[in-house]
């Protein structure tokens, strides 16, 4: 008895244990990979092999086409956090020349009192995205549309790089002692509003969200109202409309004046 090798086909204990274990594994595999998938009619499986691949988790691209196309232009910018973050001196130089035509509204140093956005120190990806959206018509402006229409993709990148290179200049309304409104710091979680600072730079920055410090309050307010009403729709997948829609007029006023007073 004790001479008999444990792991041997002649040992009935070994044979039966291995056999039963293998049988459980095979039965479970048949149940899990074939029977249960095929029992789900909503999976619309093409056959046994399809069932096995699906249950085993072989990835496939979702190929459904949209049944409803937009009746307005949406932004076609592919936004990533690495976008236009590498400084390129040649691009900045070209951008400086191209930006001369922007100076009448945005100021020779990218700062102006005309209630048009201050672009000095703005993230390059943000300026590029807005120019691109003006060009495609995703963002509508009678002033910016014709300017952007004449720009090539490289022109837009260069102008964006130039403005990102310029130092931010605090506005005349700078007041760093001004208390931050609750909606900037904590948002309004009960109303589905995250803090402004979680995307716009005070706490964290989400790719494509502009730096708001020193922007004209008139401009910020107008944009929030346009997002809330749906007049402006170039925010990808409604990321800003979802928030502006929930804000009260008082909150819009507060954040507009708060950001104007920031550096």
């Amino acid at each position, binding site marked *: 008895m004790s001479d008999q090798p444990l792991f041997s086909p002649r040992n009935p204990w070994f044979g039966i244990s291995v056999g039963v274990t293998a049988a459980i594994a095979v039965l479970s595999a048949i149940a899990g990979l074939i029977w249960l998938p095929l029992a789900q009619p909503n999976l619309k499986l093409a056959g046994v092999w399809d069932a096995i691949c699906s249950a085993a988790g072989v990835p496939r691209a979702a190929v459904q086409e949209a*049944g409803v196309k937009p009746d307005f232009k949406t932004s076609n910018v592919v936004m990533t956090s690495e976008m236009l973050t590498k400084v390129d001196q040649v691009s900045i130089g070209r951008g400086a020349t191209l930006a001369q035509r922007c100076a009448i509204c945005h100021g020779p140093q990218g700062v102006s009192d005309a209630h048009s956005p201050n672009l000095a120190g703005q993230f390059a990806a943000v300026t590029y995205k807005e120019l691109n959206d003006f060009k495609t018509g995703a963002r509508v402006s009678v002033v910016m549309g014709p300017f952007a229409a004449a720009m090539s993709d490289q022109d837009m990148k260069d102008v964006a790089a130039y403005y990102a290179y310029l130092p931010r200049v605090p506005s005349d309304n700078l007041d760093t002692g001004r208390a931050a409104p609750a909606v900037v710091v904590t948002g309004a979680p009960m109303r589905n509003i995250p803090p402004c600072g979680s995307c716009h730079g005070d706490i964290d920055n989400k790719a494509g969200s502009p730096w708001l410090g020193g922007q004209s309050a008139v401009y910020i307010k107008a944009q929030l109202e346009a997002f809330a009403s749906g007049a402006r729709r170039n925010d990808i997948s409604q990321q800003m409309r979802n928030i502006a829609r929930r804000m009260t007029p008082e909150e819009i006023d507060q954040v507009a004046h708060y950001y104007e007073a920031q550096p």
Partner: protein
Amino acid sequence: MATETDHSLGEAVAARIERRWATLSIVIVGLLVGMAAYIGIHQATMPQGRVETADPKTLHLSGEFIESNLGSEMEADGSVTVRAIGQQYSFTPQCVVVPAETPITFRATSADVVHGFLIEGTNVNTMLVPGYVTALPVRFKAPGDHVMPCQEFCGIGHQGMWGKVKVIDKAAFRDLAAAKRRLTCVD
């Protein structure tokens, strides 16, 4: 000779005990496999039948997750498909409208980081993983409102991220669906 008898007797007892324990182990394994299958079939664990991929960077450019295609769609067979995305820091659509007592399939994905997808008062509780489509069948018994919070920490604005699911009467939904092809309850 007495020791020989004791030995074979001991061997027989050991073999019997061994057989019983082995049988018990097999029964336990079989029971666990059966349990896994049962809760899978009866939608308690809701395993996803397929792994589908979608590029999070280009969801807004083409495919089923473009802005105009999001919301609830009435299918030809009377079921409803809801398409949604999660992004830092909101769900689009912000308010999902669905009919009661109707088979519903949620198809959702994330445009940036991992988000949670949970509908309060139901057993819907899964993740939206960038790169993958989350698809799960649901059936709401009665009209009512449910909150749909992101339950996976997704960044500093996470606490402000939630949506709403509004379950309405089947006939009322059918009337809405006749007028518009993608329904939401965003006001």
